[in-house]
């Protein structure tokens, strides 16, 4: 098993410009795209996983993300940064997945919270403690918007400016969302003690 830590220490030498030059040549696109994946797949996977929670779901979503990115890379002209563009695709795919899941759900939020704890305990790809389960339960009570902002700031340690570029929202609005999310989670953690 590979443990996830908040910051990935691996650095990749290849630049986005080099990747894009390769991706814009039909004979080199596969090579370029594989380099893109090596550089961004872990960050994007964890971004998606924290939103959808289960590995199987994250695996489906991340594959869709890369298939869409591959089909769109030819038309990517570099108006935004490559990672901003990829994060947008990943966030969109994760939201679409969560919306579909919500439509299928028949249980209440309380039941969902309880169910989540059981699912996590039985999950082969979760090795967290009680505090981490409580955090995931608290996150299920947040609206998607606050959940995304919280994850990007708390786990991915993104600056408000970077988040603003990805989510195309003002820094002020993002600070407010993060503040609300943190307060709600803290309250939830204290109540559950």
């Amino acid at each position, binding site marked *: *098993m*590979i*443990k*996830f830590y*908040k*910051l990935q220490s691996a650095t990749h030498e290849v630049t986005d410009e080099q990747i894009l030059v390769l991706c814009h040549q039909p004979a080199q696109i596969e090579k370029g*795209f*594989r380099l893109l*994946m*090596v550089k961004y*797949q*872990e960050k994007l*996977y*964890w971004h998606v*996983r*924290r939103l959808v929670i289960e*590995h199987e779901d994250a695996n489906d979503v*991340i*594959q869709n993300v*890369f*298939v869409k990115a*591959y089909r769109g890379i030819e038309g990517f002209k570099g108006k935004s940064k490559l990672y901003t563009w990829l994060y947008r695709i990943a*966030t*969109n795919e994760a*939201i*679409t997945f969560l*919306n*579909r899941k919500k*439509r299928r759900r028949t249980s209440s939020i309380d039941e969902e919270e309880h169910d989540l704890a059981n699912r*996590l305990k039985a999950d082969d*790809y*979760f*090795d*967290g*403690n009680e*505090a*981490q*389960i409580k*955090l*995931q339960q608290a996150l299920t009570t947040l609206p*998607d*918007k606050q959940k*995304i902002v919280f994850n990007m*700031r*708390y*786990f991915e*340690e*993104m*600056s408000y400016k970077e988040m603003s570029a990805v*989510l*195309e*929202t003002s820094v002020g*609005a993002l600070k407010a969302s993060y*503040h609300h999310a*943190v*307060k709600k*989670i*803290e309250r939830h*953690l*204290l109540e559950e003690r």
Partner: protein
Amino acid sequence: MSKKKEIQNELEELAPELLKIEETGFEVPDNYFELLSDTVFKRIESTAAPETSSVNTIFDFGSWIHQIRSLFQPQYALALLGIALLLIGIFALMPSQKIASDATANRDIALEDEEILQYVEENIEDFDESLLLSSLESQEEEYLEILLEEASLEELF
């Protein structure tokens, strides 16, 4: 100030309990990231449109010429002429029949619609309310599903 420090400072006052939890506890299968690009490329290849190779095109072109030439042998040419005359005869008769049948069908549909509306208006009291409501709800649900399918980041933020 580093980003990490800035985030920690932000949380010290707001959420000291949260600050104690650093990881998610999530894991992935062994070699997952090593194999992910192969899995993605398999999916890309399986969903890509099949391409016709130039070798096949040349081969097919030659065989097409061969087949066309064979049709000019006397026995085939006579049979083809017969089929062509038969088809011309059929098509010469078809349009008027089609127009006539289309017009009849439209009149039937129009009459049916009028009759249905009239019947519903006259007998509205007899219709089951729950049946009417469920029909409306299912239409509304379908519409909502389409809208939600299109929901994206732009709508969320």
